[in-house]
């Protein structure tokens, strides 16, 4: 991990950038965030798979809590079949959202219910609208968040379950919230999860940790929907290549034994 860690903590070539740059509230200092704890995820390791029950609950958390502000543009409703939902269930989920379609025969745009082929409907029509509703901060799209941060799933979990009261003497800027895991400690997102914020249909107790865990399981899947296929294929490919290497090496030794050396 050495190289990657170095890269992540690596330097800005600010002296060389002539382009004027606005620094977002999120990019003050990356060094002072609280250490993220390593969690034991179901998807880790070369045989890791998606915990479908958890990811299904995570979808519920996303739809009922996160989707108020965060889009999920890279994922289509049809993709939910990967998590074990039936077609009827997915159609029902999609039908609750409206998309603009058209133009129709009269040249008019029209609203219709979302279908399987549609991408998850975004809460705001554009980034400007999202920022206008969120105090100037842009809620990031959640499709790739697990891959887009150094700590990955561990980081998102720590962030979601890690809101705390600011230490005495810390002045939290107006409109921001204290979260020790966030670089700079002040995050625009208010604590999104509250105890029993959703009611799980499978009876799981909806603690903050449980909801954070489930939504991260879900987001890991949205970031790497190919993961199970990739690892399964990888096992076969790498095993094949190891055997091939061994056979080639044996053949090479046999061939070279004809020579003095």
């Amino acid at each position: 991990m050495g190289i990657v860690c170095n890269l992540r903590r690596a330097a800005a070539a600010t002296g060389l950038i002539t382009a004027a740059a606005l620094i977002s509230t999120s990019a003050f200092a990356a060094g002072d965030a609280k250490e993220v704890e390593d969690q034991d995820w179901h998807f880790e390791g070369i045989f890791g798979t998606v915990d479908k029950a958890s990811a299904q609950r995570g979808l519920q958390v996303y739809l009922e809590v996160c989707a108020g502000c965060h889009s999920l543009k890279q994922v289509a409703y049809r993709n939910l079949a990967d998590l074990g939902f039936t077609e009827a269930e997915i159609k029902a989920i999609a039908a609750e959202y409206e998309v603009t379609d058209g133009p129709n025969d009269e040249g008019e745009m029209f609203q219709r219910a979302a279908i399987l082929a549609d991408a998850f409907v975004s809460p705001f029509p554009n980034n400007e609208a999202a920022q206008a509703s969120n105090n100037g901060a842009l809620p990031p799209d959640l499709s790739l968040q697990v891959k887009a941060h150094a700590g990955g799933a561990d980081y998102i979990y720590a962030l979601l379950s890690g809101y705390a009261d600011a230490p005495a003497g810390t002045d939290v800027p107006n409109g921001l919230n204290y979260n020790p895991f966030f670089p700079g400690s002040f995050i625009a997102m208010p604590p999104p999860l509250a105890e029993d914020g959703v009611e799980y249909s499978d009876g799981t107790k909806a603690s903050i940790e449980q909801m954070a865990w489930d939504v991260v399981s879900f987001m890991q899947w949205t970031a790497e929907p190919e993961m199970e296929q990739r690892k399964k294929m990888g096992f076969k490919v790498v095993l094949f290549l190891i055997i091939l290497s061994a056979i080639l090496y044996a053949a090479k030794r046999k061939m070279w034994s004809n020579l003095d050396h």
Partner: protein
Amino acid sequence: MSAGTNQTGGTGSGLVKWIDSRLPVFSYMQKEYAEFEAPRNFNWFWNFGAILTFMLVLMIMTGIFLAMQYTPDTGLAFDSVERIMRDVNFGWLLRYLHANGATFFFIAVYIHMFRGMYYGSYKGPRELLWMLGVVILLLLMATAFMGYVLPWGQMSFWGATVITNLFSAIPLVGDSIVTLLWGGFSVDNPTLNRFFALHYLFPFLIFGVVILHVIALHVTGSNNPLGVDPKGPQDTVPFHPYYTMKDSVGLAVFVTIMAAFVFFAPNFFGEPENYLEAAPLVTPAHIVPEWYFLPFFAILRSIDFNIWFVDAKLAGVLAMFGAIGVLFILPWLDKSPVRSAKFRPMYKWFFWILLLDCIILGYVGGKPTDDPVFAGAEWFKIIHLGYITTFWYFFHFLILLPLLGIFERPKPLPKSISEAVLGGGTSGSAATAKPMEKA
């Protein structure tokens, strides 16, 4: 078809002979890749030429299929890459092979180059062979840089901004060059379009220079771990089947390691922030190039002072390009008549120090310049380590190598490869090479 035209002999059917007497592709392949005599004592480091050829073909193949699905438009590029990852059949495999392929291409290139340095492969008569290799390195770096811009993530955009801005350091014409590179007044859609076009073109330029590299190799023949020229057939083996076999083993092992990353840790060498779409108004906290550029990036940043009338920025850029420039003239900097470090007791040490120096430069390139190197010694910062390692890099090539050629006392060379290989490695013994073929 008179008998007179069929003079190249050779094996094969009548059709092969018919073609060969008009276009000698078969006899060329036979002569240059099958019968081609290679020193019998290559070690495993001589695998990397074949590995690199494979990597170039792999990158071109995966790249062409990716280009069929990719859209070079600032509004669509990021989403088109995600579409490749999600909706294109095995698109994730193509992209991860291509992205990790770049990393493993550079791993192989750097091993290949350091092998050449250790065994003195750049020395006469192989100067042009080596220089063509440096040209390939430069083209490879340009290609990798432009390819990294295409996904249009945060690091794509900001990396492109930083690197293209380097050219503005050039006096008089710098700003015009930058405008030309951008196709406008900032990194934007025209930049992405031209980088895509050039990223598609450059691999074929590389392919062309690789052909020249191989032609030059087949004129001079390969160097070998002893650095002693083959004296006759007892010192060589036919390239096929001996080295085609050995190269296959090395290639299979190399591909196994690469596959492990592609399938199990495909983003290990990547920068997480490149999974955020480019946002020209949001500067990332840390802008870093890909790992294979870090040593050069460290040299660039280490010159943060004016040198005479040259300002720091231009001096840094010159030093960075100079780091590759010294490789061009390496065959004339190293004055020692002995090729292999095996027989150069002092150079051997300095080789390993240079390798360590380059690794530390890579470490420096990936760290903020005012971080302390060791906890507890706050006064010794990364930038200081950068000064030392940058100085050593140029000191090694420009001062040390010429002096070593004068002051170093090389060990006696073996009379021939076969003597060293078959005669138990005792150099200087009077025994003549014995005939080699047992079978």
